[in-house]
């Protein structure tokens, strides 16, 4: 198992956003998380990537614990250095890309491998150029983010996350901030990664994409996982009334 989350609880000022959620992701799996806004799917992803701290529950990456429920029922995180170890296993792609506007495309990609992972610059540079080729952006290496379209920026952000060689890559609504005609180029890249057996968790509103690319679809609503399974099952033959309702609204 690459990621194991169990019994995750998270509230914001009395509002329960995640109610006892459990999620496991195995190597090579592509998991899509769908659901109405406010269902807690983004929060789940932010908890998995430690941008939010969980109130209770357990998180493990590659079997290594990151947080566990302590004696008082509250989640206790491991030490700073242990957490940094665990952080190496995942990468994150944001809805708003969050590229560093004052750095070139190449520097955006190379900074973390060189400064955080302390890998040799030449090696990282070669890898970064290879990633840019894969993203079809090899001629934009010296451009600044503001000179790129939203779709191009998001592809740079994916390259930046991949440069750290994560075992699992999270996407937080990767196409929601894009114009409709630009979503295709980003989805194509994710599809390509899926074919290469990259382990991924994608929070998305793109239903056809989720159905076509993922091995498993999770439908969340009001802080719980309502239904999950094979995409053909969930989309073609939903078991839960809430799922049926949600998918019907989406098809209109």
């Amino acid at each position, binding site marked *: 198992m690459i990621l194991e989350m169990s019994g995750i609880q998270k509230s914001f000022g009395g509002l329960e956003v995640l109610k006892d959620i459990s999620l496991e992701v195995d190597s090579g799996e592509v998991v899509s998380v769908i659901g109405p806004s406010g269902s807690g799917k983004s929060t789940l992803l932010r908890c998995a990537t430690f941008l939010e701290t969980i109130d209770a529950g357990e998180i493990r990456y590659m079997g290594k614990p990151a947080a566990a429920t302590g004696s008082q029922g509250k989640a206790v995180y491991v030490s700073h250095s242990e957490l940094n170890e665990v952080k190496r296993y995942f990468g994150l792609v944001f809805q708003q890309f969050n590229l*560093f*506007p*004052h750095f070139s495309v190449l520097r955006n990609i190379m900074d*973390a491998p060189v400064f955080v992972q302390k890998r040799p610059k030449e090696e990282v540079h070669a890898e970064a150029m290879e990633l840019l080729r894969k993203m079809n952006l090899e001629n934009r290496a010296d451009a600044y*983010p*503001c000179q790129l379209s939203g779709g191009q920026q998001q592809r740079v952000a994916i390259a930046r996350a991949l440069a750290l060689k994560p075992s699992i890559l999270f996407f937080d609504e990767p196409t929601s901030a894009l114009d409709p005609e630009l979503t295709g180029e980003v989805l194509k890249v994710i599809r390509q990664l899926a074919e290469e057996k990259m382990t991924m968790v994608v929070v998305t509103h793109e239903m056809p994409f989720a159905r076509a690319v993922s091995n498993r679809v999770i439908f969340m609503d009001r802080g719980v996982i309502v239904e999950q399974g094979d995409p053909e099952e969930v989309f073609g033959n939903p078991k839960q009334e809430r799922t049926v309702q949600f998918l019907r609204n989406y098809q209109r």
Partner: protein
Amino acid sequence: MKKHSSMRRTFAVLLIIGLVSAMFMALPVFAGSDGTEKSAQTIFGLEDLEGKIVGVQTGTTGDIYISDDAELKLKGVERYNTGFEAVQALSQNKIDAVVIDDQPAQAFVAQMNGLTILDTEYVKEDYAMAVQKGNTELLGKLNEAIAALQENGTLQTIVDYYIDHSGEGYSSPKGAEHPNGKLVMATNAEFPPYEYYDDNNEIVGIDADLAMAIGDYLGYEVEISDMKFDSIITSVATGKAQFGMAGLTVTEEREQSIDFTNPYYTGKQVVIVRKSAGAQRETIIDRFKRNFVQAGRWKMLLSGLGVTLVITLFSTLFGVLIGFVVAIIRSTHDKTGGLRILNIIAQVYTTVIRGTPTVVQLLIIYYVVFASVNIPKIIVAVIAFSMNSGAYISEIIRSGIMSIDEGQFEAGRSLGFNYAQTMRYFILPQALKNVIPALGNEFITLLKETSISGYIAINDMTKVGDVIRSRTYDAFMPLVTVALVYLLLVFIFARLWGVLEGRLRRNG
């Protein structure tokens, strides 16, 4: 195209500066022919002062007596920083009379047209030296020296020289030795003939020479420190100066803070009023020469400019450093909840600095914080202005940090950078770029704010302008020149800063 339009803008601004200066230059033609011709003398005795406004120098005995004097039935008392300012106001019809010490009154009346001294003196008074309370050893020595110098005629030689312009005056005997160290004399060198700057930029006068003679007699080197009149007593009381000598009259109020020696001279407070007389005309060029060329006064102005620039540059440097640290402490607390104690200190610091006047901060740092420490005044000023500007800069930088999207912090963290690294590599560079215009503005503010350095007797550009004014009896020329130099400095700086801004903007 773009270059062309920016050149045109520079030209337009220079044109405006030129026009403004020309306007100022033209102004004295009207101001110069001030009311002196129209107003005939209306005050002939103390009884005529009823219903009039009288000017005095703040903190002088004239001020003290006249403020308590109900018999005169004055309309009001105007207090000025120097006697010269009061006399100038009188000649410009702003007030009706000036109460001032007899000797400087004679000097002023001799220099300026249309003024006269009333025959009846206002009050008689004894001048003495001030020493720190309880310093009986020094008090005894000074009394002994005064007695001896009165005895051997030295005092009379000095008085003759400065008042009757006769004789050679006093100069230290050849081979005079000062084995006992140094005495600092606090004075206000705008009070001829007691103490004033001569054409060689040295402080001379009855008090100055007598102090030197006393020093020679007692074996001390005397260093004269020029300051505002109302700072002299404080300086002596806090031990910044060993004695004060500035035509100081013995009053009960003063005796509560310091001790007085036996009087060395008896002076009179007299009343200066206007009489009818034609104002003297002078061409602009003569006036310019008199203010800046004569006695090489432009050199003073230049050194004042240097002092202003040194204080401003160093204060900006340290201000930015302080601002940086405080801004990072405060935003780290806001973002992560850490650094609680430091955050409280930083908040108190910004609140106090932003909540009190800069002049008060400067005076507190000089007279309270460094009261008993011997430290160059320029360093005191740099400390005060750095602390002051640091508080404002910290808020500027903090607003820059807060303006950066939260996603940038999250991106940094998700890539494995810790908080400090994220701050340093990703947040601060962007934040700084956003606040460049505001930082330039703060520098301009600071440059002009340093003009209060004169409060602790630093000869910055403003103070030099004021010193020139006190010597040439011309307010217009030195003050407008100083104003134009500030304007030019700000203009040049704003242009340079604009170039920097443009360059940063182009770099994405």
